[in-house]
């Protein structure tokens, strides 16, 4: 990664190694070693240790970025400008934003820029697309590359015309001379003899960038460049990729987590015409000319499979299980001695497993040519998938080309390459390209989950009603946002690991959804103990000016002080605030309760959000609105249920994600800060939705909420 010049101050974003958070499926199809699959049901079976993947995972610290200008920007002889990036488009808006970044600095219209994204055979490794890092980490180098290209064009014109710098001017994507008569374009530059040599040079770190107040393209709303192909069905998602002679695959799945295959009779499938069957120890799959045939073949052999199962905790005993299986026990409150005589609040919060459930399930098409492999798949981590493939097949990463077409949603759930490896294993056996598309049930069962967690919180108040001690322990779900943004006397905030019964990994905003829920719900309980208004209590403990600003904005726009006084037993209001990935968010929610039907309707959400200078206001609004509504699903209904190693609600019928009628009245306020560096925004808007709604239920019922999803009967 290039050093960022002083013109772009580095935002305060925590460094997190995302790849360590995600449990991978350790497929190993080596020829010399005994092949095996470390079957899922992680935590109960095997700790995953993958040095080869860690090296090739494309995590940020290893991601090299563009080695020279030509690796970042390609200028065609026809004048078509292509920007190359390792980032992916999964609906979060990277394609539009990076196009804007390039167009701005190149001095060309947005429509003149093409993006070539996430083809490991062609693009620089910009790291995975997660952690809201595209904006703070990839926009700057793309801008630098584009600015360097513009500088080349200017220099080229100066040499051609033998004129001084101040006599030439950039306008509408062209360089004009002082009289405005002669002009040169990027196409002219590309056609010059020196072009190839010029593009070989490194991108200078001190290249001059366009100042924010001069922006024409960045900062203005930009639509997704390939929007038309989306509405016509022309865009090829990973599951739509078709290759000549391609077969359709199906993988044998264990009947329960941790189950081991003892025996299977492959003969019934082998007897079928045009069906390929492969067994590699625990891995069993088929490929056939169409999906129905593949399903039939798989059904025939899976009926013969004998399994050895293991015991597995159920979702009903999940929270006790997590507490009982911590590494080194749950830390005690170190301030216990100071609690005597003080007003003390102590609560425990439960956060269930949930699934990302992207609408496009995992999909991959794999095609071998000798020991060279090309895979088209939907993943947030193209170079990471390349590393996983190299590891599984014992081949150098250079032999593996991973292409990520714009895909159908990730939300932190598509960091891994298991589907790509499975498709590649089938394709190797078939000697033909194979398309593998997971079913919804597979996606709900075998994809990784947002971690479940137990959070223990204890706080004491001093005589002035201020928080004197703050003890906050997250068990299992993660460290992100475990610390409090509030000013407290003494604090003790920790995450401790447990033995997760399900395979878990990243989710939109990581553990921040869990920790913000617990902290903000707890703040309302502590405020109640202090006899204070939730807004006033927060402000009395809050110094960060950016967090204060969003909280005050949301409260004002929502008319908090008036609404909070209303006394309707079935109407409640709540608020919450938090910060994540360098951005700041606050929300007020209104709920309407139907106690007889045990139903909570969120009628209104007012959110204020600030992420520095806004780059694409249209997309930002979409991300915030989408984050709010996705957050409502996790607040009100979403929860994985499992028993005896099986997910019992692995369908959209039983696992009910938000639909149109969940849409509350949305009142979103985006605070633009041209004086501050831009940071990502795809994650943070979700983190305070659950606590705002929980606090609204608390307000209406007088009974606090301590578990997700929020249940009126329990509340």
């Amino acid at each position, binding site marked *: 990664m290039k050093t960022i010049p002083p013109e772009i101050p580095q935002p305060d974003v925590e460094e997190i190694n995302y790849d360590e958070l995600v449990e991978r499926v350790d497929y190993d199809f080596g020829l010399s070693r005994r092949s095996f699959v470390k079957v899922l049901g992680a935590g109960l079976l095997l700790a995953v240790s993958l040095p080869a993947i860690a090296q090739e995972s494309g995590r940020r610290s290893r991601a090299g970025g563009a080695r020279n200008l030509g690796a970042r920007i390609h200028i065609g002889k026809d004048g078509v400008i292509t920007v190359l990036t390792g980032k992916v488009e999964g609906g979060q808006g990277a394609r539009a934003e990076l196009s804007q970044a390039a167009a701005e600095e190149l001095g060309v219209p947005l429509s003149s820029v093409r993006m070539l994204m996430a083809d490991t055979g062609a693009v620089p490794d910009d790291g995975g697309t997660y952690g809201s890092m595209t904006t703070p980490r990839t926009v700057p180098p793309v801008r630098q590359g584009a600015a360097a290209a513009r500088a080349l064009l200017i220099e080229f014109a100066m040499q051609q015309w033998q004129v001084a710098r101040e006599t030439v001017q950039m306008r509408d994507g062209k360089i004009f001379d002082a009289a405005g008569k002669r002009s040169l374009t990027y196409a002219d530059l590309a056609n010059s003899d020196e072009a190839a040599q010029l593009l070989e040079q490194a991108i200078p770190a001190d290249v001059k960038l366009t100042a924010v107040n001069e922006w024409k393209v960045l900062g203005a709303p930009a639509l997704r460049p390939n929007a038309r192909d989306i509405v016509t069905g022309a865009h090829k998602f990973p599951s739509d990729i078709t290759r000549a002679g391609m077969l359709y695959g199906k993988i044998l799945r264990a009947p329960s987590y941790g189950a081991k295959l003892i025996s299977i009779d492959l003969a019934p499938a082998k007897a079928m015409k045009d069906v390929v069957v492969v067994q590699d120890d625990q891995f069993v799959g088929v490929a056939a000319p169409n999906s129905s045939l593949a399903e039939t073949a798989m059904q025939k052999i899976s009926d013969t499979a004998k399994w050895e199962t293991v015991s597995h905790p159920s979702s009903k005993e999940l929270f006790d299980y997590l507490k009982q299986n911590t590494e080194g026990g749950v830390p005690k409150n170190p301030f216990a001695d100071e609690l005597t005589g003080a007003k003390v609040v102590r609560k425990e919060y439960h956060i269930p497993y949930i699934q990302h459930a992207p609408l*496009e399930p995992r999909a991959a098409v794999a095609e071998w040519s000798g020991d060279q492999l090309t895979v088209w798949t939907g993943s947030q981590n193209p170079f990471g998938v390349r590393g996983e493939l190299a590891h599984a097949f014992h081949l150098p990463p250079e032999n593996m080309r991973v292409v990520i077409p714009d895909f159908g949603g990730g939300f932190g759930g598509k960091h891994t390459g298991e589907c790509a490896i499975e498709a590649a294993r089938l394709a190797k056996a078939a000697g033909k390209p194979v398309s593998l598309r997971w079913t919804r049930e597979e996606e709900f069962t075998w994809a990784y989950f947002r971690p479940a967690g137990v959070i223990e919180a204890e706080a004491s108040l001093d005589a002035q009603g201020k928080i004197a001690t703050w003890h906050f322990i997250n068990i299992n779900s993660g460290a992100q946002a475990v610390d409090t943004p509030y000013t407290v006397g003494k604090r003790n905030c920790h995450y401790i690991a447990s033995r997760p019964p399900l395979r878990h990994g990243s989710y939109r905003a990581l553990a921040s959804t869990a920790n913000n829920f617990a902290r903000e719900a707890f703040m309302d309980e502590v405020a109640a103990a202090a006899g204070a208004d939730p807004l006033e209590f927060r402000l009395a403990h809050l110094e960060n000016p950016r967090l204060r600003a969003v909280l005050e904005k949301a409260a004002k726009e929502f008319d908090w002080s008036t609404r909070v006084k209303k006394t309707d037993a079935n109407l409640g209001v709540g608020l919450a605030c938090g910060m994540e990935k360098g951005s700041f968010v606050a929300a007020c929610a209104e709920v309407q309760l139907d106690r007889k039907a045990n139903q909570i309707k969120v009628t209104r959400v007012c959110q204020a959000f600030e992420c520095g200078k806004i780059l694409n206001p249209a997309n930002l609004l979409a991300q915030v609105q989408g984050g709010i509504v996705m957050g409502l699903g996790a607040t009100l209904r979403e929860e994985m249920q499992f028993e005896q190693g099986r997910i019992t609600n692995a369908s959209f019928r039983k696992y009910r994600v938000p639909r149109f009628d969940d849409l509350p009245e949305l009142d979103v306020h985006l605070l633009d800060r041209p004086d501050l560096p831009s940071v990502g925004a795809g994650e943070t808007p979700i983190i305070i939705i659950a606590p705002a709604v929980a606090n609204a239920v608390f307000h209406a019922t007088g009974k606090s909420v301590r578990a997700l999803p929020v249940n009126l009967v329990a509340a």
Partner: protein
Amino acid sequence: MDTKISFTLNGKARTITTDPDRSLLEVLREDLQLTGTKFGCGEGQCRACTVLLDGVSTPSCITSIGDVDKTEVVTIEGLANGDKLHPVQEAFVSEGAFQCGYCTAGMVLGVVGALKKNPKASETEVMAEMQRHICRCCSYEKYKTAIQRAMAQNGKAAA
């Protein structure tokens, strides 16, 4: 047993011979290379796979190809008139309604189907139909605005 099935697909007569129990979705995608229609759940719960079957929006994942015999099927690929987008497609682009776009084809045909069923349908009626569709990016606010825009266009066209 393979059966001969004849139907109209995006305005053209098609005859295919296949197992009549296969889903319409699978045949569209795998035999006819019309991949604009998406798989989302396989049980009619998300409507990413929506097509128009004799003008009615229908989940193609739970419709067997055998049942399509002698009907008229329109997929997302058959909606635009050459380069001219259908007004619903136009509205979805103009409003930047979608994020990942995987549910979009189904959403478009859902709205077209609702307005075909009743060209004078109220917004409430159309939204009730759209309740069957899932957008996992939860871009419902922008979709709603786009649907309102499409309905306004439709009203103008009908007037």
